[in-house]
């Protein structure tokens, strides 16, 4: 096995890991903020992919150009989901956790069903995009541009989330997370902060969806493939830790690729789960979890 092959596979794995990380970022942000596991996260990824597809078909806009548009759309969707569904569950006194799980789970089933109804269950894809089909060659190492661009955009999302945490709003997020009743006393509107938190979380998954639409197929069920990995990424990185999601995503991408190369492609998810179990045994809160 040549060194270039190993390098190629490793770099490809890390790039895919960045995609996993950015999908997980939104999930962990929402969890960190209000202890709600959003089971509709995969479905929201799917919504972003269909939005990209539809806008592309209607206007011919390249997915890359659509990035801010779809991110904004998904931000809006996140705020609406919070205001319309999640905010109501926060006042539930009995079994609030269960209610939240069922609400987001139900939302997921609704969104997937709606997509099946509206767009049919056929696999669709964007065939003519600026990045589609182009490759970047470093000697013998060939990297597909859509994946490289996804990695770069993912890093920018993480940079943005990091900078956001330094702003006044970031402090308000942090404070609300710590104690949302106390912050009310100093005039911070809990619902406003949570709503924007949901917006940012779904906008991140929206950005992942746009980048995936460049090279991945689009179907009502597509979110499932990524959602499972996103949950593992969040747990491995530590619930609520954005930085943890980034590192965990990279680890998962790399382990997955190397397992497939050195052991057996059929076992690549086993590699991920082995690492996950090992981390949970040694450090149950995940790599960078607070708890």
């Amino acid at each position, binding site marked *: *096995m040549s060194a270039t*092959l190993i390098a*190629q*596979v490793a770099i*490809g*794995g890390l790039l*895919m890991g960045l*995609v*996993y990380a950015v999908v997980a970022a939104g999930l962990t942000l929402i969890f960190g903020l209000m202890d709600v596991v959003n089971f509709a996260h995969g479905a929201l990824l799917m919504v972003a992919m269909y939005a990209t597809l539809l806008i592309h078909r209607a206007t011919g806009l390249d997915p890359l150009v659509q990035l801010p548009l779809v991110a904004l759309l998904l931000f809006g969707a996140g705020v609406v989901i919070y205001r319309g569904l999640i905010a109501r569950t926060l006042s539930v006194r009995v079994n609030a956790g269960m209610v939240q799980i069922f609400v987001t789970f139900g939302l997921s089933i609704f969104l*997937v*069903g709606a997509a*099946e109804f509206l767009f*049919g*269950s*056929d*696999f*669709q*894809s964007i*065939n003519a995009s600026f990045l589609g*089909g182009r*490759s970047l060659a470093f000697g013998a190492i*060939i990297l*597909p541009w859509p*994946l490289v661009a996804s990695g770069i955009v993912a890093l920018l999302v993480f940079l943005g989330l990091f900078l956001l945490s330094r702003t006044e709003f970031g402090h308000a997020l942090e404070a609300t997370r710590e104690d949302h009743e106390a912050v009310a006393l100093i005039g911070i509107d809990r619902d406003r902060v949570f709503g924007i938190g949901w917006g940012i979380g779904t906008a991140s998954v929206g950005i992942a969806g746009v980048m995936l639409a460049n*090279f*991945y*197929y689009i*179907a*009502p*069920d597509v979110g*499932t*493939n*990524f959602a499972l*990995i996103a949950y593992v990424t969040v747990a491995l990185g530590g619930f609520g830790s954005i930085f943890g999601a980034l590192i965990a995503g990279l680890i998962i991408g790399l382990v*997955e*690729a190397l397992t*497939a*190369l050195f052991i*057996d*492609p*059929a076992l*690549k*998810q086993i590699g991920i789960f082995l690492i996950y179990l090992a981390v949970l045994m040694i450090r149950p809160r995940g790599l960078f979890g607070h708890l």
Partner: protein
Amino acid sequence: MTGVRRRQLLAGAAAIGVGTGFARRARAAEEIKIGAVFPLSGNAAAIGQDAKHALETMADIINGDHDIPMLLGKGGGLSGLAGARVRLLFADSQNNPQIARSAAERFITEDRVVAVIGSYTSATAVTISQICNRYQVPYISADNSSPSLNKQGLDWFFRPSPTDIDFTKAMFDGFAAFGEKTGEKVRSIAIIHENSVFGSDSAKLQASLADAAGIKVLANISYQANIPSLAVEAERLRAADADVLMPSSYTSDAILLVRAMHDVGYTPRAIMAQDAGFIDPAFIAAVGPLAEGVMSRSAFAIDAVKERPAIPAVNRLFRASGANKDLNDLTARELTALQVLADALDRAKSTNNLALREALRATDIQGDQTIMPWAGVKFDATGQNMKGNPVILQQQKGEWRAVFPFEIATAPPIWHIAR
């Protein structure tokens, strides 16, 4: 007066009684319920929805008054059952073997269907066929191709279409014939397959047939279906660089694989697919020009209209049923499965399960009475059709053309595997 009245009354009551009795019998004969279990949602939903259109098209051909040159293509209803019509009930397996089993069981115990048709993936066919066997209801395997299915020792299993053994043999026969014709012989293959029943069985067969033909297997890669990336698999295939790539994948993975190979700059010299995802119109639409030259085994050749004159009319009805696409290998097999079942019901002249099984066992349909390129339909002791010979199709300028066997081929193969 009163006597007459009473008599009239009695006669009237009797008439009503007879009337209702007759009506009930007529209604029972009017509608014959058949259960169809397919993945109507989930990762194979597109296939399941197409299957629904295919079965509905055949039901319409049987029930309605058409003039199509094939078995049951003329007149309405089943004449053997006093013009009875077939009624399809659909259940969603979600492509999950457990859900498929309970759906089939509900059909049998609650809806009292006379037979069950299914089910796309072989993994779901295992559970459905076993539950049907337990309740002694025929299972018509429309589009499951795993060879192990008719070797479960079931008495109620019937499969009109060829199995992966027949299909895979046809591929290697094709290799030999293409090699003879062009002088470019296959020396090596690379196998890639998803790791459930369908892919594993298919790969095992391909490896053993390659071995028998003296062809080297340079890679044999198994992967889990519906994973986010097949990039590493594509790398390994590029490294193997075999004469022919032989994939067994469902649609989503077929799209990913072909794109991933393109991304790493690998163009296989020839692709010979085990049907499934590669024959799905969604695959062709998604990968566009990358599908050019892809070959697949098939049980159906849409361009064989000279030998099978019913194809254009049936295809028109299928398109109009809401499918909005041409018949393909899967939908043609699903449609034909219902035709075979309906023919047995017609000959059984009864919906009794034992009579129906006897009729199925006695099935003997000539190939030209169907839309399939087969010699015919006649079941062996395991319920497998002995006369279902497959064809090899190739994507040429965006169309599927039959390229093998040469007798029914509609275009010469594009075959450039020499280094």
